[in-house]
């Protein structure tokens, strides 16, 4: 990839933040956000996503490090001069103003003439498909409509950078999925850079150009959604993105790009994500849908186990087995013709390819 000619929009350089002067809620953050991408900060509750976003918007000052926008430090730039649109988690629409006044507020402040204001407000409402709602008050709108007004307000003065903090958190699933597409479309059409915060990994996967996974104030991995799913580099990422079966073991042999780890159920062949030394503890990650029930031989890892439980999910069957020390080993079988009748209590042969098994550093000790 020609990484050298992408233009950087936002850079975090060694940013740390502590509210109480003792615990760091964001630690040594380094991030590059490229122009025109939808960059997502993904992580569980309390991992420091909002704090990072608020530092970028200028509402919190970093305890250490620096933030650059378009290559220059914004340490001394107050929020109102950063030219960033912000969509807050609870929308933060001004309750005493109509939708129209909410949208024209930033324009008025910038001294835009009345006609141009009306024109811009009309266009912003068009973008979010809320034509004709100018005269409603925020409390007369549905959650989805309020959300779109908040987006329109953040966009109306045409910032190049827009921050969104869990904007879809309060919506039901269908509306949320609709809005995900809508935000993608708007972002794409206007060509703005969006830094998006969510704790929902599916949302992050569906929307983002790239995702930064947060855990306890630290970045675990930054990658595009597919890489995150296929090539997690940390145990936390493997567990947080999609489902993964984790087997604990010790590396016994390393050769070239492969390794063997000893688990309670026997040796497992895997692909190490970094060079391991023999004897090191490891967490092996195997996706449930990559495990095949096989009578055919030829997989690098084959085992026999008893089915403890079978769940019918609809589009797939979900089996729980006790395997190699993991009593919660999940296997997913697609619900296709002839997926075979599997019953609780059956003993089955199953296996997975070496490349579908990633050996990650064991993080149990590091917590």
């Amino acid at each position, binding site marked *: 990839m020609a990484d050298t000619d992408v233009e950087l929009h936002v850079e975090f350089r060694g940013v740390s933040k502590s509210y109480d002067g003792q615990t760091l809620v964001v630690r040594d953050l380094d991030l590059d956000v490229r122009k025109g991408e939808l960059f997502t900060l993904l992580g569980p509750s309390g991992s420091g996503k909002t704090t990072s976003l608020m530092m970028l918007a200028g*509402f919190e000052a970093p305890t250490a490090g620096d933030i650059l926008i378009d290559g220059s430090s914004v340490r001394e730039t107050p929020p109102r001069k950063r030219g960033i649109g*912000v969509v807050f988690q609870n929308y*933060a629409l001004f309750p005493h103003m109509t939708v129209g006044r909410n949208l024209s507020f930033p324009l008025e402040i910038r001294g835009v003439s009345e006609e141009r204001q009306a024109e811009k407000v009309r266009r912003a409402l068009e973008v979010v498909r809320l034509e004709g709602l100018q005269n409603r008050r925020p*409390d007369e709108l549905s959650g989805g409509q*309020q959300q779109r007004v908040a987006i329109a307000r953040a966009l109306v*003065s045409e910032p190049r950078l827009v921050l969104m903090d869990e904007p879809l958190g309060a919506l039901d699933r269908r509306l949320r999925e609709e809005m995900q597409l809508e935000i993608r479309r708007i972002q794409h059409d206007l060509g703005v850079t969006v830094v998006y915060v969510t704790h929902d990994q599916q949302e992050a996967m569906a929307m983002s150009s790239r995702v930064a996974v947060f855990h306890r104030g630290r970045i675990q991995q930054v990658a595009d959604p597919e890489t995150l799913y296929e090539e997690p580099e940390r145990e936390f990422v493997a567990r947080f993105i999609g489902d993964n079966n984790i087997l604990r073991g010790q590396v016994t042999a390393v050769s070239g790009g492969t390794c063997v780890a000893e688990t309670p159920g026997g040796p497992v062949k895997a692909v190490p994500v970094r060079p391991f030394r023999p004897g090191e503890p490891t967490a092996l990650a195997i996706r449930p849908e990559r495990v095949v029930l096989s009578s055919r031989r030829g997989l690098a890892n084959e085992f026999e186990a008893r089915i403890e439980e079978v769940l019918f999910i609809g589009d797939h069957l979900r089996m729980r087995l006790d395997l190699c020390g993991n009593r919660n080993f999940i296997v997913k079988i697609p619900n296709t013709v002839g997926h075979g009748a599997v019953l609780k209590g059956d003993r089955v042969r199953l296996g997975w390819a070496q490349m579908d098994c990633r050996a990650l550093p064991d993080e149990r000790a590091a917590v």
Partner: protein
Amino acid sequence: MTARPTSLTLGDRLRGGFHLAACAAVFVFLIAPMLVVVPLSFNAEPFFTFTEGMLSLDPDAYSLRWYRNVIQDGEWRHALANSLLIGLAATALATALGVLAALGLTSSSMPCRTLVTGLLISPMVTPIIISAAGMFFFYSSLGLGQTHVSLILAHAVLGTPFVVISVTATLAGFDRNLARAAASLGAGPWVVFRRIQLPLIAPGVISGALFAFAVSFDEVVTVLFLGGLAQRTVPRQMWTGVREQISPEILAVATFLVGFALLLLGAVEWLRRRGGGPAQGNT
């Protein structure tokens, strides 16, 4: 769950009746002294008691003569003008200071919040005689004894806690993200205050101001200490009236004050119902 029985037992009714009677008694005890004043102020005779004619509802036993006297009396007018001047000026001052204090107290970077709040509220709990005596010596040493300025300042001090309390309560429910959103949209601190915060906390500000005005309007102790003849307010004039020339004029003024207080109370209640409730973020 079983349905509630709809008919009450005799015991329940008795208890209910007793409860009502007790409430009524307390009510009468609290309100009656004030209510007696009202009909007496329409007395045609210069007495503080009900005359025969009044009791038999003879229209001639009633008159507006004391009201007329009050309105025509130069001293009462002077007192009312003083009360209004001092009250309005003190209210303006207390409101401005109280709103600023409340804004500061609710900001996240406020150190020693509890201590400062306590200090600001203290005029409300300090015995008034002590504050008044203290202010007397303080203002005298500044050469401000017996001036309108000293009374305005004193009443502002007494009124500020009410503004602080009511505005702080309104701000407590204020969504901090509203101010942040406005800032991110390009608004400076003054515009954020003027266009976003003030409209949303207005009910709290106004009810605080009404309380501050009420405090000043019926305050007599500081006036006794700090005011001279030129600073006589309505309550001060009543005080003199009670001691020197016992006349039902006082009852007329008292009736007027009761009506005024009811009006203020009504205004505060109306504001509270109409959404003194703080701004709601999301539905």
